[in-house]
């Protein structure tokens, strides 16, 4: 399972980075989303992987580490906020520069 998660994190971040390096706003939005998945999984993994041990106190239960979960929970919401902000920035840039190239002004084709 550990190896599978590591592969998932690796592929997610590689694809995220590749998309963030594109020149148009939309792929960057996609890339950022993928990269935040990767980072969230990575942070989550810092508490080790356990099956069937949710951190809900009950008699005789085993528990996984709750702290990374708390961190990732807010990270997910903040990640949404960031994506939303980027999306609005893209729209504003579109209206200001007339294009969706990140290095506005548009380069001649």
């Amino acid at each position: 399972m550990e190896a599978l998660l590591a592969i998932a994190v690796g592929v997610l971040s590689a694809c995220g980075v590749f998309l963030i390096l594109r020149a148009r706003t939309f792929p960057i939005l996609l890339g950022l989303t993928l990269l935040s998945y990767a980072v969230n999984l990575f942070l989550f993994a810092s508490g080790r992987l356990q099956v069937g041990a949710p951190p809900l106190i009950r008699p005789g239960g085993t528990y996984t580490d709750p702290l990374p979960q708390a961190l990732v929970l807010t990270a997910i919401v903040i990640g949404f906020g960031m994506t939303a902000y980027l999306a609005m920035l893209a729209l504003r840039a579109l209206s200001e520069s007339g294009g969706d190239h990140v290095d506005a002004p548009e380069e001649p084709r």
Partner: protein
Amino acid sequence: MNWLNSSVLLPVIPATALAAFTLPLLLQRYGREAAALTAAAVMASCLALLLPLAPAAFAGQTEIARLTWLPTYGLEISLRLDGLGLLFCLLILGIGLLVVLYAAWYLPPSDRLGRFYSLLLLFMAAMLGIVLSENLLLLLIFWELTSLSSFLLVAYRSEKYESRVGARMALAVTGGGGLALLAGILLLGQIAGSHELTVILAAGEKIRAHPHYALALVLILLGAFTKSAQFPFHFWLPSAMAAPTPVSAYLHSATMVKAGVFLLARLYPALGSSDLWFWLVGGSGALTLVYAAMTALFRNDIKGLLAYSTISQLGLITLLFGLDTSLSVVAGVFHLINHAIFKASLFMAAGVIDHECGTRDMRRVNGMFRVMPITATLAIIAAGSMAGVPLLNGFLSKEMFFAETVAYPQFAPLGWALPLFATIAGMLAVAYSSRFVHDVFFNGQPVDLPRQPHEPPRWVRAPIMLLVLLCLLVGIFPAWTVQPLLAAAAGAALQAPLPDFQLALWHGFNRPLLMSLVALVGGILIYALRRPLFAWQEQLPPMHPRTAFERFYRWLATGARRTVAKLDNGSLQRYSALLFTFVVLLGGWSFFSALGGGGIRPAGQPANEAALATLFVLLLGTVGATVLYRERLLAVILVSVVGLSVTLTFVRLSAPDLALTQLAVEMGTIVLMLLVLYYLPPRDAPNSSARRLIRDIVLALLSGGGLALVTLQMLTAPDHSTLADFYLREALPGGGGANVVNVILVDFRGFDTLGEITVLAMVALASHALLDRLVLRIPARDGDGRRWAGEAHPLFLSMLMRPLLPLALTVSVYVFLRGHQLPGGGFVAGLITSVALVLQYLANGIAFAQPRLPQRPVRLLALGLLLASGIGLASWPFGRPFLTSAHGHVRLPLLGEIEVASAMIFDLGVYLVVVTVVVSVLSGLGQLSLRARRGAEQA
């Protein structure tokens, strides 16, 4: 008189100067006199504050006053007054008062003087701070303040190019030296274990034996030599002569350039008495002494001659400290006093001549004795002191210098070399002094002067007269005038019993006297032979450390500009690539440098088919979205597939809260992306060049591979220490909740959460700013060239969604209430509510949804944040820290027993903020279409 003790008075002196330095600027509207009087009053009050402390310093005591500032960094406001500090205070304040008087006449009447005197007072305060500091870090702060204020003073006539260049050079050299000094002081503090002078001065043996002694010494000397214009850092001082003459008289004769020498004297007990000290300090001083004296002889500008003579005399003082015997230190302090007195008067006289004649060129300014006999007489006496003519103070200290070279113990086999060298230096001093006197005051008629010179008013001559009188008094009656002050200052510099010395005009006919006579005669001879000498100097290759510095400076500036242009070319792609490259390098470096023991353990959790299938779907979605990112709609769907597999992963790996959150966020993200996609231009992006594609793929593979490696290493490392036990143990008794994740969010780490919802609130505010009055063109066709569907909203969806809203809201209330015990809580409930509201908007259109959405999002945001921080503050009246929670049990109908914690109010704040942010962002985007349609109709 109890309040007059040193611990009160001592800090008050620099504090008064610092507090009052803007007064002249404020009072200049009452006239130039008001500004001048204020400046004089400030200096006089500092002097008055100093006087009650003087007797103790004369008696050889050291007064120390301490105020705590930043004790963790070893930085305290601690001040000390001993003989050395007293001497410098008297020089700074005494000459300062004379300069204030002189400047009022010197500067043109159009100048209102407020700025000048304010800067002068600031500089004076900084100098007082240097000489009164007990803590070396504090000293350094004042040291830098002198560099800054002297920069402003030299550039006082900022409209002139030379002023700006001179000021910049002075700042670059002394500021650079200040950096070296900072490093040196930190190192010295490490070695001695404290930055307090009392400790450092007592730890001389320990410091000299330390392996870092040489490094610390070199760094500190760099600071001192740049400030005191020692070779090869001397070139800034002649350039700084672009300053108004009062500034030169104050900064460049008596105070700022003496700060470096002061540092040598101050740290002598800690750093001196070693071979390295002798060679570095003595060598640099000797080189400066002769080189600058030779250069001074050939300058045509009066102030240029005085500047180089100052450098040379500072070299003499440095050499005396370098000779490293206790008597030579006494001689160094003595010459320091004498030089301050005669050089300040010489600069003032030079200013008078410049002011009266309109030029300072000695090839044109001749025969001034007839025009201004009184000023001329005064200047001639001062120049005589500089040359070392008997009956004047310069003679006494120079004779001590000669005596020291004769008696110097370490040069026994070369016993004649040092005295010979000293005599040559003395001859050169006599030569340039003679040139100044003869060229300016005699030597025929003035040539083509811009102005007709006159004798200046009497009160302008008064400061010069006073200083020259001092030259004579000290020169003739040294034992009655300067001896006590010198003894106190030299004693403080040595931190040891004073050697036996006697200040007297006549020591009998001995070798030093012979050397003085030879120097006088030889110097006059050199001057008499000046024509062949000048001709010889003409054909020498020019030496321009100043232009070399300028060239270096330009090269640095151009280089910096080019580098910045390379890095900061306005391309986000370039920035991102640089950023990721740096991250990969940094991560790789720390990963491979930390890799060692441990190694990789076999996987702990067995993977089943479901896990493999999830991974497969995730990879499919990720790679698919990346390859097909130009097919934008498809890419969005693929990304949502990835999000769902991440959700499944959370479900499987015991994180129900995360799964709920991720699921809800996923819906918001998809709606968001679809909304944005509608407006963005259809896909016609050009292909990236092959080079860039390869660069990006390599970067992506390195980042992904690196992160995968780190993840695997982290997951399989054998030692795993965690805070989990604390939270699991304390959640129920301490936070009153069984859902540990939620308890952490709203209780244990509530302050973090407060920060996070504040960030979210900022996103909502930013959406207002970014989307405000934004009008976008509605694209007529989609990316594939199809027209957008005409019909409004599918009836089925719309009808289905309306009854769903109350249901979804009920669910969210339930999820919120149970959040402390079971998966749920403010974040999840907020997201569920927002999704329910946004779905209404999707199904029924913005016109239907708008009235049903929160109308004043900013107020709701404020309410949420106030709730969260208010409940945190509520714990203060109970004497508890911010965000302490309380909890108890309540029975509610239908829901059964509920654990109610004050943290739930906090959670309510979280809920409100999340709902408002998501809804206001998405409805803000939705309203774009309304506005766009209206815009299209109007057009």
